[in-house]
């Protein structure tokens, strides 16, 4: 059986390692082959970008060689896919090679697209790429005070990032002795400060306590850099001195170009994770169209499900379990306190008050991630 995994990020890496461990003898005997096609020889720990924006980590700490994260027996090829020929069970890469498969898994992730909003790329700071997080770090250092506005597009990966960046900005300016010179103003697309009702119930009083103002039902329409104002689709507008944004995301262009899914989101069965209408193509991580958080933990839990199911397809001829919609997200509530939210398709989260212990657990996880990607955690 030839298993082809497209994408060497969180989902693809955890899936490949999970499968390699379940199918070690078969890999050794050559009965099973696992090949990963990816776009970069480096693997980035994206959640670290949040800390890079504050200078709390350096760029080199965010990367490891992709090859060093994979179990022996997995063939890694750094050559991005350009064409998906699903009817022929084949893909074609940038270098012109073709790879065929019996089972295909796609985990190509998602990307911020600030260009969707006029003025956003030019006039806002964001931390969703290494380059922009570094720019934001310098912009924060140079900022002398004024109104800092946080705004976001829909959808975006990491649903906790809007709250985390806001609480961390608060503590950052406080530590620099600038609290009296900085007014933080948070905007959010729906009618409360977070999509999770219980998280919103906790976060809104926290904002009040810290003097952070907020405005809900605000969806970015345009940024007027000359007037230093953002305007919302709902008709509101708000001025800023420093604009921090999380742009709306799309799946990768290659997904759209190959007509696998509008916006780069591939129609995916929410329990079995197969691409709708195809039994040998599985989708995981950010690029599914499943209406749940685009988060590393989502990709991780989906990879666990698929590892078990694809191995079972080989050994038993059928999958053995469903993905239950599980997501787990840490929430930084400042520079040294955090809480978390865990939920699935049926059960909403019930976040507890933030503690230092949870913050330190998140900091530890930032290091443990590399073990987790190897599938050992």
């Amino acid at each position, binding site marked *: 059986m030839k298993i082809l995994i497209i994408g060497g990020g969180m989902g693809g890496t955890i899936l490949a390692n999970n499968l390699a461990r379940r199918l070690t003898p078969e890999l050794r005997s050559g009965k099973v082959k696992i090949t990963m096609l990816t776009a970069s020889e480096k693997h980035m720990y994206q959640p670290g970008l949040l800390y890079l924006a504050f200078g709390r980590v350096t760029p080199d700490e965010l990367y490891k060689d992709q090859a060093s994260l994979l179990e022996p027996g997995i063939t890694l090829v750094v050559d991005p896919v350009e064409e998906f020929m699903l009817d022929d069970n084949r893909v074609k890469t940038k270098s012109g090679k073709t790879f065929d498969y019996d089972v295909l898994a796609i985990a190509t992730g998602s990307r911020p697209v600030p260009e969707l909003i006029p003025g956003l790329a030019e006039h806002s700071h964001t931390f969703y790429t290494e380059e922009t997080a570094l720019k934001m770090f310098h912009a924060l250092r140079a900022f002398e005070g004024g109104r800092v506005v946080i705004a976001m597009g829909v*959808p975006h990966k990491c649903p906790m990032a809007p709250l985390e960046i806001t609480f961390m900005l608060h503590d950052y300016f406080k530590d620099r002795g600038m609290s009296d010179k900085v007014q933080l103003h948070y905007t959010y697309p729906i009618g409360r400060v977070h*999509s999770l*009702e219980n998280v919103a119930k906790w976060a809104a009083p926290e904002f009040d306590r810290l003097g952070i103002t907020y405005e809900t*039902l605000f969806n970015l329409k345009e940024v007027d850099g000359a007037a230093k104002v953002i305007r919302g*689709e709902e008709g509101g507008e708000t001025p800023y001195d420093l604009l921090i944004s999380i742009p709306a995301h799309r799946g990768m262009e290659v997904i759209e170009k190959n007509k696998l899914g*509008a916006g780069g989101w591939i129609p995916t069965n929410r329990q079995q994770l197969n691409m709708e209408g195809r039994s040998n193509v599985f989708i995981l991580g950010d690029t599914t169209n499943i209406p*749940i958080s685009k988060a590393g933990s989502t990709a991780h839990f989906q990879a666990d499900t698929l590892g078990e199911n694809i191995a079972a397809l080989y050994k038993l001829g059928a999958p053995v379990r469903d993905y239950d919609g599980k*997501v787990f997200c840490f929430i930084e509530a400042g520079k040294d306190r955090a809480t978390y939210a865990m939920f699935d*398709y049926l059960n*909403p989260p019930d976040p507890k008050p933030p503690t230092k212990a949870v913050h330190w657990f998140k900091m530890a996880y930032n290091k443990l991630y590399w073990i987790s990607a190897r599938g050992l955690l």
Partner: protein
Amino acid sequence: MAEKKVIDARGSFCPGPLMELIGWIKLADIGDELELLSSDKGSAEDVPEWVKKVGHEYLGSREEAGVWHIMVKKTK
């Protein structure tokens, strides 16, 4: 040509039905009708509120076996 699209946001706590609609409506063409499925009864209120505020057309909603079907037309 205008299409009818179904957005299945049942069981979505985060991002939730309204955020799903906000994301998908941007990918739709003007004139398209979107049917949002939600298992959260709050959607029957917050979705029409947002749709009217932004200026799309709210076409109505119905509940069937604990699932709210909310119809919206993209007008701009």
